[in-house]
C-alpha cells in the first residue's frame, strides 16, 4: 500500500498559483493518484485524478513526473474560497474487496489570505 506524504499546511494570497506536492515513493504500477478537497463542516469531494504526465480540468491541474514518485496539485489564481484541506490518495483501480487507496491521512491545510 503506497504511503503518501504531504505538507501539513500552506499559506498563499488571492490571485496566486498554489502548488501542493505529494510524495508517494512506493507507488505501484496499477496505482492512480487522486486528490480531494474538504471545506469545513463538509465531506471531502473529488477534484482530480491522474496516472502519469499532466491532467487538467476546470478546477485544477495535476502534474506527475515520469517516475510517478510524487505528484503536484496546481490551483491557478486562488481565491479565499479555496481555503480548505487537500488530500492526496494513491491506490489501485478497484476498491471492491479491499481497502487499498482509502487512506486519506491528514491532508494539507491551505489558507488563502486577501
Amino acid at each position, binding site marked *: 500500500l503506497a504511503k503518501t506524504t504531504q505538507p501539513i499546511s500552506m499559506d498563499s494570497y488571492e490571485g496566486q498559483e498554489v502548488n501542493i506536492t505529494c510524495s508517494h515513493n512506493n507507488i505501484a504500477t496499477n496505482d492512480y493518484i487522486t486528490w480531494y478537497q474538504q471545506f469545513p463542516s463538509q465531506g471531502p469531494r473529488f477534484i482530480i485524478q491522474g496516472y502519469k504526465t499532466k491532467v487538467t480540468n476546470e478546477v485544477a491541474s495535476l502534474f506527475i513526473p515520469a517516475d510517478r514518485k510524487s505528484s503536484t496539485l496546481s490551483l491557478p489564481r486562488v481565491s479565499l474560497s479555496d481555503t480548505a484541506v487537500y488530500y492526496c490518495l494513491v491506490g489501485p483501480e478497484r476498491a471492491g474487496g479491499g481497502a487499498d487507496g*482509502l487512506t486519506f491521512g491528514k491532508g494539507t491545510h491551505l489558507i488563502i489570505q486577501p
Partner: protein
Amino acid sequence: DVKVTQSSRYLVKRTGEKVFLECVQDMDHENMFWYRQDPGLGLRLIYFSYDVKMKEKGDIPEGYSVSREKKERFSLILESASTNQTSMYLCASSFSDPSRSLAKNIQYFGAGTRLSVL
C-alpha cells in the same frame, strides 16, 4: 447528482448508549464506507462494505459494528458509546466497477454527523 445522506448532522448521546448512524446513497453504488475525522488525525477508515451483507474492517474498527441489509443503506453502530468516540463521522460510497465512474474509485461523501458522547 450523487447524493449521500446522513441521517443527522448533530447528535448528543450518553456514555453506554447504543448509537445508530445511518447513511443512504442514491447512486446504486456497490461500495460504502464509514470514516471518523478528528483534529490532527485526518480521516480514518472504520469499516467498509463492498456488497449487501458484506463488510471489511478498516483501520480502527474497535468499538464499532456495521450493518448493510440493503444496497443503498449502510449503518454504523456504536454498541456502547464512550467519550472517546466523540468525533465527526463521515459516510461515503463509490462504484466497484471503475468503468461506471468518471474516474477510478471516486468516493462521494455525505455532510457528516458530529457526535458528542457525554
